[in-house]
């Protein structure tokens, strides 16, 4: 069963209640919920969450799968038999003492799934299990889930914004309404057919209702902003990518793609003047550099503001103020802009990114989509000539997606250079003028 609904409709809460992990003192409850005729408890239902890193419990693959069995009091021989069976079922063919943190995103999610099925639950609950994965990881996990459902005969409930991933494999689609109740319940064809437009407007990715894409104006003259020469990048002295030669031009979008772990983010941070090159150099065009010198890594923090803006993969990493408004004022204030100019820029951004009603809220309390919009807005407040974004559409619903794409297209048309790291093929398709694929 595929569970849909706008963000805030209570999809995750419902899943956690079914899994038996909602504490009695969390919020209010009404009515009854029975799993197999009894109140829900861990063991009868297994839950796989979105973030691969925060559900690895132990350091070794075998131990991690065995963890659930141990908690349920399964005998040792039986536990290890189930561990082998579960790893086989999810197709994870690695040694039992393999380090869990050395696995790829898709492997980590399959490991979490193996840990769940080793407990032999009758109900498997998946809360956006593929939202943080690259396209290969998405297919890997989806196929493992389908195989497990066939092997075990367990009931499956999955929450996912990207309907296409699951559309062909679920028997039933339920749409929850914000405020309570289900507004649709039936087979995928009829629910998505009847409710497709409405769901798409609410942010769900429905086939046949793609998010709106902006029309692009094409600019003839492109101005060189950044250029790399024989660039090697890495977080330490070890290079993860070598010999990169690329050009970043005003009025154009450069997409950097490649599998997880290929060094995309590292390249992005190096281009943005935040990480020093391991070898070679990043050179700024004369007009971008101005009086700051040719190498972005040597610029002062304040000099970066009007030159290169960076939007981090995790918005929380770049929030430094107590309110949304103060967050937007940080850049203009660091530049020493007048109060009136700062006010104008901030209120313009608040309106443009639908954040005006949240101006006094704490950035950490916003929803995923709101955080993403705010993190982009903070970079735009100082009007940088180059904007580097790391996975800007990661885990976003289709509504935030089309807003972001429209915003970025507008910036590019006005002459900004946009560099985006992404494995979202729709984003590449909608925006990229050039693509660099790392392997």
């Amino acid at each position, binding site marked *: 069963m595929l569970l849909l609904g706008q963000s805030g409709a209570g999809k995750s809460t419902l899943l956690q209640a079914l899994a038996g992990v909602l504490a009695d003192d969390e919020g209010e409850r009404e009515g009854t919920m029975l799993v197999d005729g009894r109140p829900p408890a861990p063991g009868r239902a297994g839950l796989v*969450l979105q973030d691969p890193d925060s559900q690895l*419990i132990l350091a070794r693959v075998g131990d991690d799968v065995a963890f*659930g069995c141990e908690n349920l009091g399964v005998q040792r021989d039986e536990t290890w038999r189930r561990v082998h069976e579960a790893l086989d079922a999810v197709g994870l063919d690695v040694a039992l003492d393999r380090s869990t943190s050395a696995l790829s995103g898709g492997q980590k999610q399959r490991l979490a799934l193996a840990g769940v099925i080793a407990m032999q639950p009758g109900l498997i609950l998946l809360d956006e299990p593929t939202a943080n994965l690259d396209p290969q990881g998405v297919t890997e996990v989806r196929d493992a889930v389908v195989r497990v459902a066939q092997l075990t005969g367990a009931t499956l409930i999955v929450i996912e914004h990207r309907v296409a991933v699951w559309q062909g494999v679920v028997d039933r689609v339920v749409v929850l309404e914000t405020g309570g109740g289900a507004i649709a319940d039936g087979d995928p064809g009829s629910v998505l057919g009847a409710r497709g437009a409405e769901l798409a407007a609410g942010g769900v990715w429905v086939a046949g209702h793609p998010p709106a894409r902006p029309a692009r104006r094409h600019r003839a003259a492109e101005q060189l902003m950044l250029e790399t020469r024989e660039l090697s990048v890495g977080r330490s002295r070890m290079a993860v990518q070598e010999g990169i030669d690329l050009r970043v031009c005003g009025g154009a979008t450069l997409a950097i793609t490649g599998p997880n772990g290929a060094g995309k983010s590292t390249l992005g941070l190096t281009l943005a003047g935040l990480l020093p090159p391991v070898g070679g150099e990043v050179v700024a065009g004369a007009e971008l550099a101005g009086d700051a010198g040719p190498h972005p890594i040597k610029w002062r923090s304040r000099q970066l503001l009007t030159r290169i803006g960076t939007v981090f993969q*995790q918005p929380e990493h770049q929030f430094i103020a107590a309110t949304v408004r103060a967050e937007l004022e940080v850049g203009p204030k*660091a530049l020493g802009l007048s109060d009136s100019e700062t006010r104008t820029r901030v209120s313009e951004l608040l309106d443009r990114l639908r954040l005006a009603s949240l101006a006094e809220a704490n950035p*950490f309390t916003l929803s995923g989509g709101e955080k993403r919009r705010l993190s982009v807005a903070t970079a735009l407040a100082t009007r940088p000539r180059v904007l580097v974004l790391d996975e800007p559409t990661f885990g976003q619903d289709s509504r935030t997606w089309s807003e972001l794409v429209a915003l970025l297209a507008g910036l590019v048309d006005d002459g900004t250079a946009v560099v985006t790291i992404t494995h979202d093929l729709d984003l590449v398709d909608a925006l990229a003028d050039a693509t660099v694929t790392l392997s």
Partner: protein
Amino acid sequence: MTTVNPVAKLAAALLLAICLVLTIDWVSATVALALEFVVFAFIRMKARVFWLRTLPVWIAAPLTGVTIALYGQTDGAIYFEFALARVSDGSITLAIATVLRVLAIGLPAVVLFVSIDPTDLADGLAQRAKLPARFVLGALAGMRLVPLFMEDWRSLELARRARGVADTGRIRRIAGQAFALFVLSIRRGSALATAMEARGFGAPAQRTWARESPWGSREWLVMAAGLSIGLVAIAAAVLSGRWNFIVGP
């Protein structure tokens, strides 16, 4: 060495340390150190690994020594005096005894811990030392988050440069980063707690253990070795008349 139950290693290091902190004389520390080197020779640890891992102890010990030589209790001839610092016969003897003692307690502790696997230690603490499983496993799982926190910290630092606030006010910035890391860590921690709970952690069932935590004569032997080195050292101090009980005159 790797097959000895980590709890036995922990206990051996503790027993030895308890014996050695009872007195502050140079005889007991020297005897203990000499016996320890004999043991080190038998366990065939690679020389490079030994020096690399024990390096902090070799640095810390002389530093403590210098401090005690300067500020330790004055006794006998005074060689040097400046402000509160006073180097005398008494403070020098105390300094030597302290350096030897830091080495005698620190080196075996490091050597015993180098080969400990956290998962095995947790298994041992819960199954053998009978510490509460909830506490031990919670701590073990929490430790897995440490590398993630380190990555978070690096990103927070880069992000501050990107936001234009990294040129000045370093101390205030670090305080802000620490707070942000704190918020992020609570979030990661509660996600991990949910994942653990969903896998039946804390369920009413009697927990079983997938991994055995072996315990036999070898474990008793390791503990006995730690205790005997300590006792021999104490005996040597008492017999040589250098016994200097830490409490009392």
